């Protein structure tokens, strides 16, 4: 049985761990609200963009359309853009995103496709590095960026576009975690190149002839790269909110576990203390009787 001193030390160490998790939980809760507001504020733009693109994508003839819309005509090589966070202590948040991306990568590879990784955020790197060390074409963390803003997302999108034009890949998929609530975050896979244009989205409303200024193709050429930046931007914002949500939940659980542990240890400590006292008494009494 552990000695009294040992038990005391353990209790105090669990207590200080609990203090840390409690503080981290409160920090996450405060940050969550801000991140959630930012993610929600960005949604209207993304939705509008999608609607505009959907109506435009249908009207353009495939022959003249940009390869960003129709693809390169083959699907031999894939670029997986995986966004994770820089920090841990967020439960399974990063692990879930990485798991989804890795599963997709394995599957693509089994079908004989080339897979490349484009990583944003520190936490995904170690795991992916273990299995696809030679396939990471780009890695970037958020250490020098305080707030993810649109300019940053645009820079990322521009870089991806340059790679696409150089023929480095045919299809790009984006992995991030969609924020639902503090308890639920969904790791999501989203195709960004070629742009997925859903045909049913526009079927219900036919607006008739639309005037384009300048031409449809020119508008589309500007819209498509912008759309990629917007998707990455919203993805990163969703990710930020999800991270704080996951972190809050994980830290709440940790705080509760630490509380349970402290209770158990305290009971054990008291029992041990009583046992020690009883033993001492028995020794004294039997010593007195012997005289």
């Amino acid at each position, binding site marked *: 049985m552990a000695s009294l001193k040992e038990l005391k030390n353990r209790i105090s160490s669990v207590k200080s761990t609990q203090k840390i998790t409690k503080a981290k939980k409160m920090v996450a809760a405060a940050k969550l609200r801000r991140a959630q507001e*930012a993610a929600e*504020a*960005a949604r*209207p*733009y993304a939705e*509008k*963009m999608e609607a*505009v693109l959907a*109506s*435009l994508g249908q009207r353009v003839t495939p022959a003249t359309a940009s390869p960003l819309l129709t693809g390169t005509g083959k699907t031999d090589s894939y670029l997986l853009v995986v966004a994770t966070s820089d920090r841990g202590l967020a439960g399974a948040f990063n692990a879930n995103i990485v798991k989804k991306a890795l599963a997709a990568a394995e599957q693509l590879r089994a079908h004989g496709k080339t897979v490349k990784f484009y990583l944003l955020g520190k936490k995904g790197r170690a795991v992916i590095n273990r299995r696809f060390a030679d396939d990471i074409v780009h890695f970037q963390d958020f250490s020098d960026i305080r707030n993810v*803003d*649109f300019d940053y*997302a645009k820079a990322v999108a521009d870089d991806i576009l340059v790679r696409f034009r150089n023929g480095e890949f045919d299809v790009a998929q984006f992995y991030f975690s969609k924020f639902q609530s503090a308890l639920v975050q969904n790791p999501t896979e989203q195709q960004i190149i070629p742009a997925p244009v859903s045909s049913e989205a526009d079927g219900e*409303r036919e*607006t*008739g*002839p*639309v*005037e*384009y*200024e*300048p031409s449809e193709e*020119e*508008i589309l050429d*500007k*819209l498509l790269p*912008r759309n990629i*930046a*917007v998707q990455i*931007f919203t993805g990163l914002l969703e990710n930020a909110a999800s991270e704080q949500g996951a972190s809050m939940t994980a830290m709440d659980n940790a705080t509760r576990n630490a509380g349970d542990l402290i209770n158990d240890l305290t009971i054990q400590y008291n029992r041990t203390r009583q046992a020690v006292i009883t033993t001492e008494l028995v020794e004294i009494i039997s010593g007195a009787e012997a005289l």
Partner: protein
Amino acid sequence: MALNFELVSPEKQLRSGSVHQVVVPGAEGDFAVLENHAPMMSTIRPGAIDVYEREGAPAERIFIEGGFAEVNDKGLTILAERAEPVSEIDAGALATEIEEAERTVASAASDAERTQAETRLAALRAKRDVAAN
């Protein structure tokens, strides 16, 4: 009856509601949108949009740095890259930004970089012109 007008930037939704008329600086010339405008879609050059809440009311000016305008049966939607009310433009900060952009243009290493810097500079100059009026 009025025109349903929505102005959104990537960061947030700036305006949503019904107005009388909006004048948009289209890439191929300014155009005004009233209710029941024919469906159209246009890119926007950097410049100010004029929002008229009611007929005859003074215009609210908002600077837009490029983007798209779409008119459909539901109204006018502007997807702006950046948007800022003209009354909030800080002339001093803008002047330093323009100087900076000029330097970037001068020191650009590649053609692509220079084109990008020049676009930025043109946008900033348009912003200055808008603020001056």
